[in-house]
């Protein structure tokens, strides 16, 4: 069948079962938009800014097991999309971005709305390509979806010149992709896996450190089975929350800069540490030299060899997919009666319980002023711990991560690696499209929300009943906190003056807005918001301006050097 390039693009998306295409039109993609118009299978979502298109596609992927897809025009369309692409890249999220390009004959001539999309995005994509010939189009798109979703996932950009979308050729969608240069390892080395299991069974102070790789591998059930069968303590990184039930007693919560006392102490003082789909990020282990002070054996499962021994030398590297490797490990455990020394494990748990008894998450609640932690606890109660929660970046993000206990994977959507303010609402959009009818809440701050506030309009157009939980402290809170701790209380440019009336702003966009400033009204407001099944409700909580996120490990310090409360300052 002979089709135009634009028809081929749409056919490819249909073949890939793309439900939603988040995008924004422009000259270079007009042929593609024309074809979108003529069909119904791929539903286009018109955002208000290309950054939001990529974030929404990214959230669609984060909250499902599928690849997200976005479409932008050339030039400014692409540059606007870059933040979204980099955000997905840092968290290894599978997204395919189609960008329009000026006609091939104009490339390199500083043509109208020309930007070297492949060049601009190269450092923040898993792969990208410029399709100069319509005969390569179908194969390129097929490749893009394949590369985005396999191995260590990531964003892939396909740049398509306008003339290519008009040219015609015979269309056949390739059934499979064979690339001699790209064959990610899935199965782990069986010898290494045996060695790892042996080490775990001999451990006296074992610790499981699980990350985003567990979520990306859809291996939460396997991880839970594995950890239960061993009886070991586990910590889940910010990206790994929900990979193991957060309400289970073997869960020590999150590690790292704002992790729990018990998780950080157990990370540091374990004798065998198994890292599963986690990358020893600087926000997690702090200073690698301090971390290395304690002798321990480290097992590391990761699909990307370059994640292994990057920041921390490991003893048993296992390159492979978390799910496959855990299957092997569970098989080995099922086949043996042997378990780690119960006395040693009991002593270890006793130690952990002592650390836990410090109750590092306690905070002083108030009847006068709303505490952000309290809002999140109530949010958790009101949604029975079963909502999809997105967040922006800042203090509110940490409070959401700390006080909402995620029991299921793909329920917590945030920007961990790039830390992009502005993701919260577009993430909620992508997530709500993927899960119509499920409660979706965006925990945000008055600064972050303003970075993509225009998307309130998109939410109206598509009737997305998102609940926005604005923890409004009138400060770039996370910045203010650092200035308080490390810059002598000089709050340089971290106060947000001239804030809009958010409730009214939401109303102006056609939504429901509510201001809440009394602790006693928090729960009622949340219940009311979630009762409104068809409305977007913007809850503007006026919270304690001076509240800080604890515990905290200062940048460059060791994991055990935590500030637990204001008394430690």
């Amino acid at each position, binding site marked *: 069948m002979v089709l135009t390039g634009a028809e081929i693009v749409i056919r490819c998306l249909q073949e890939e079962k793309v439900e939603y295409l988040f995008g924004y039109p422009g000259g270079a993609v007009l042929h593609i938009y024309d074809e979108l118009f003529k069909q119904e299978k791929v539903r286009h979502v018109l955002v208000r800014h290309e950054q939001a298109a990529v974030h929404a596609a990214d959230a669609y992927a984060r909250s499902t097991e599928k690849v997200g897809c976005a479409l932008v025009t050339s030039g400014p369309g692409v540059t606007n999309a870059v933040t979204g692409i980099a955000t997905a890249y840092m968290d290894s999220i599978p997204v395919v971005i189609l960008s329009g390009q000026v006609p091939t004959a104009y490339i390199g001539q500083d043509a109208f709305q020309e930007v070297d999309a492949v060049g601009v995005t*190269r*450092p923040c994509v898993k792969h990208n*390509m*410029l399709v100069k010939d319509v005969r390569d189009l179908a194969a390129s798109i097929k490749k893009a979806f394949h590369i985005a979703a396999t191995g260590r996932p990531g964003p892939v950009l396909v740049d398509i010149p306008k003339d290519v979308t008009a040219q015609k050729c015979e269309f056949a969608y390739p059934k499979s992709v064979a690339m*001699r*240069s790209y064959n990610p390892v899935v199965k782990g080395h069986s010898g290494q896996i045996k060695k790892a299991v042996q080490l775990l069974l001999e451990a006296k102070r074992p610790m499981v450190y699980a990350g985003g790789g567990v979520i990306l591998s859809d291996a939460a059930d396997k991880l839970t089975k594995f950890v239960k069968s061993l009886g070991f303590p586990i910590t889940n990184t910010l990206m790994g929350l929900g990979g193991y039930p957060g309400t289970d007693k073997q869960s020590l919560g999150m590690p790292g800069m704002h992790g729990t006392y018990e998780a950080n102490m157990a990370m540091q003082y374990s004798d065998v540490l198994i890292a599963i789909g986690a990358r020893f990020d600087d926000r997690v282990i702090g200073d690698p030299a301090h971390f290395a002070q304690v002798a321990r054996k480290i097992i590391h499962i990761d699909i990307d060899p*370059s994640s292994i021994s990057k920041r921390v030398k490991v003893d048993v590297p296992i390159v492979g997919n978390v799910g496959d490797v855990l299957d092997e490990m569970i098989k080995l455990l099922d086949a043996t009666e042997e378990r780690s020394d119960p006395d040693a494990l009991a002593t270890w748990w006793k130690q952990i319980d002592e650390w836990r008894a410090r109750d590092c998450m306690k905070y002083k609640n108030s009847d006068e002023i709303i505490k952000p932690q309290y809002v999140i606890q109530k949010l958790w109660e009101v949604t029975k711990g079963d909502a999809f929660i997105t967040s922006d970046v800042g203090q509110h993000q940490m409070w959401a991560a700390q006080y909402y206990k995620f029991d299921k994977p793909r329920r917590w959507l945030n920007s961990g690696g790039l830390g992009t303010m502005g993701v919260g609402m577009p993430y909620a959009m992508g997530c709500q499209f993927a899960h119509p009818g499920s409660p979706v809440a965006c925990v945000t701050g008055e600064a972050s929300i303003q970075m993509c506030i225009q998307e309130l309009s998109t939410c109206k157009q598509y009737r997305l009943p998102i609940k926005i939980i604005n923890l409004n402290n009138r400060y770039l809170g996370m910045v203010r906190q650092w200035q308080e701790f490390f810059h002598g209380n000089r709050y340089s440019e971290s106060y947000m003056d001239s804030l809009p009336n958010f409730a009214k702003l939401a109303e102006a966009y056609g939504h429901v807005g509510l201001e809440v400033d009394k602790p006693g009204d928090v729960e009622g407001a949340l219940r009311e918001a979630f009762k409104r099944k068809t409305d977007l409700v913007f809850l503007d909580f006026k919270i304690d301006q001076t509240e800080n996120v604890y515990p905290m490990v200062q940048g460059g310090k060791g994991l055990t050097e935590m500030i637990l409360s204001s008394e430690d300052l």
Partner: protein
Amino acid sequence: MRHVISLLLENEAGALSRVSNMFSARGYNIESLTVAATEDPSMSRMTIVSIGSDDIIEQITKQLNKLVEVVKVVDLSEAAYLERELMLIKVRATGKDREETKRMADIFRGRIVDVTESTYVIELTGSATKLDSFIEAIDKSLILETVRTGVSGIGRGDRILRI
């Protein structure tokens, strides 16, 4: 430590910039980089000379392998290998310097490939150190220009890099 890394990659537009981009983005050092198509025109062979600790070189090879267009990577300097570089060097050659320069070129097994009344162009191949030594050996003030290709490397004997 100096390492000579050899790779096979798809001979596609942009593959080279992907490699060089990776080095600059991650702050790795490139002493030299050479690339050209192999006997199979769909594939290029690249030789990169880099200096770094074992940890850094390990990351470099892993990061190279991670690039979608890279087919194979080997650290040649891990075992027996050969390296060659070509240099063209133009020197002033007048009076007694003419004889002296010719003599030095002979000692280093260089060839004079262009002659004018006042200049020579000498072609010299060898390891990077040999080329360095030649530059050291002749009178610096005579050098008009030098151009070097960067190192190409190949494993000895049974060490073969192909798919």
